[in-house]
């Protein structure tokens, strides 16, 4: 029995959510897992695995901008990020001195690697996408990324291999020999499971993302949902709000629901209207959803790229938040075919364990 340290980044819940099936697989094989995280990521994993030991392990704040100034703000925040990553790396040494670990799994935490213990990085972004105007920065990010990838023994890419089934497109394309040698394409990894239930909801709207964009989208959506035919639920993604559903005609608005209820609602929905965050998109793939309207968070270049990419592939329709016309866009979304058939999480985690993790743990 081996001991594994799993440490997801706390930028949204996506990193923690996709680590759930990996942790489950490790536990199923009788290994010991310690979770090192902070904030909501830690809360989600605590809720999912209450029996596991936890270490409060701070990371760094999200450098997302509230508008279209993501790149300049990100550039300005880089020295602070570097200081935080260095601190994070030093903290890991202390954690590894206190207890014995056979493997470290870092989900996008750049400072969580060790020269003494095999370290695996989990990321769907082997390459960063920036708007065309910033192409020199995108070019410079390639060697910077290569340096980071070199610190890890392997990289788990929660995507299908580059090709027609790739969910992350150019983001998961290994650009250097370092990435090519280390990358292991695990396929979709999602904590959301398919349930045997009827699809009795016409729409599920998931409003999420950093403020103030979350509130702006909430206003845009709530002003127009009455124009859609059918029954729907709006998840406002506002944990501060009272978790009391509010009825608005055929619609129910809920400020916040636990992840298991959200999973159930996603299973019941015929059409999902949501942000184009990668974890949400893996959930759509896992549940085999064919109808979705994607609304990227303004200024988040990754989401903007993924929306564009899926539209180009004919998988899902997307529209910019400031150009959203709900009835028209929902009608357009119906013409798209959804993701093609691909292996699901259960099969992927089995393969991941046999082909990669077992080599470090058995």
């Amino acid at each position: 029995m081996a001991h594994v340290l799993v440490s997801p980044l706390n930028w949204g819940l996506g990193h923690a959510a996709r680590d759930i099936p990996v942790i489950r697989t490790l536990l199923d094989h009788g290994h010991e897992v310690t979770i090192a995280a902070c904030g909501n990521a830690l809360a989600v994993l605590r809720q999912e695995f209450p029996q596991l030991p936890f270490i409060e392990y701070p990371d760094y704040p999200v450098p997302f901008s509230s508008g279209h100034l993501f790149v300049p703000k990100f550039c300005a925040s880089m020295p602070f990020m570097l200081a935080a990553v260095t601190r994070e790396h030093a903290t890991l040494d202390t954690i590894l001195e206190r207890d014995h670990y056979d493997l470290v799994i870092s989900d996008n935490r750049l400072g969580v690697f060790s020269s003494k213990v095999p370290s695996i990085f989990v990321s769907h972004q082997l390459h960063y996408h920036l708007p065309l105007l910033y192409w020199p920065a995108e070019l410079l990010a390639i060697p910077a990324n290569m340096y980071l990838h070199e610190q890890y023994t392997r990289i788990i890419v929660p995507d299908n291999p580059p090709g027609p089934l790739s969910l992350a497109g150019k983001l998961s394309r290994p650009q250097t020999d370092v990435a090519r040698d280390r990358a292991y394409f695990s396929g979709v990894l999602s904590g959301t499971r398919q349930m045997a239930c009827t699809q009795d909801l016409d729409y599920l709207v998931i409003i999420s993302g950093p403020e103030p964009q979350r509130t702006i989208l909430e206003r845009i959506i709530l002003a127009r949902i009455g124009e859609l035919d059918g029954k729907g639920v709006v998840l406002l993604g506002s944990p501060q709000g009272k978790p009391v559903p509010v009825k608005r005609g055929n619609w129910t608005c809920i400020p916040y629901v636990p992840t298991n209820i959200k999973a159930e609602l996603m299973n019941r929905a015929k059409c999902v209207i949501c942000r184009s965050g990668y974890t949400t998109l893996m959930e759509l793939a896992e549940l085999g959803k064919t109808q979705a309207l994607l609304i990227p968070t303004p200024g988040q270049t990754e989401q903007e790229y993924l929306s564009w990419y899926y539209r180009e592939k004919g998988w899902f329709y997307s529209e910019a938040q400031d150009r959203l016309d709900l009835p028209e866009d929902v009608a357009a979304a119906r013409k798209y075919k959804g993701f093609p058939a691909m292996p699901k999480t259960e099969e992927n985690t089995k393969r991941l364990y046999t082909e990669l993790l077992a080599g470090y743990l058995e």
Partner: protein
Amino acid sequence: MDELLVSGTIALVVFYAGIVLVAYGIVRVILGIAGGFLAGNYLFTCGILAGIAGAVIAYVLIGMLLRRIEII
């Protein structure tokens, strides 16, 4: 000292130095245009503006080419 900190600091210093250099170049070009215009040297001014237009087009085309050949 932590290797991560050393390499990161070097990379950041080079990156910011590059930004400062580009900003300095832009200021010099603007001053050149303004100086030429105020001195009545319109041919010189137009020459610089044409140069800028050419550089912008080249910049965008290089970016598009790098996208097309999947370097970025």
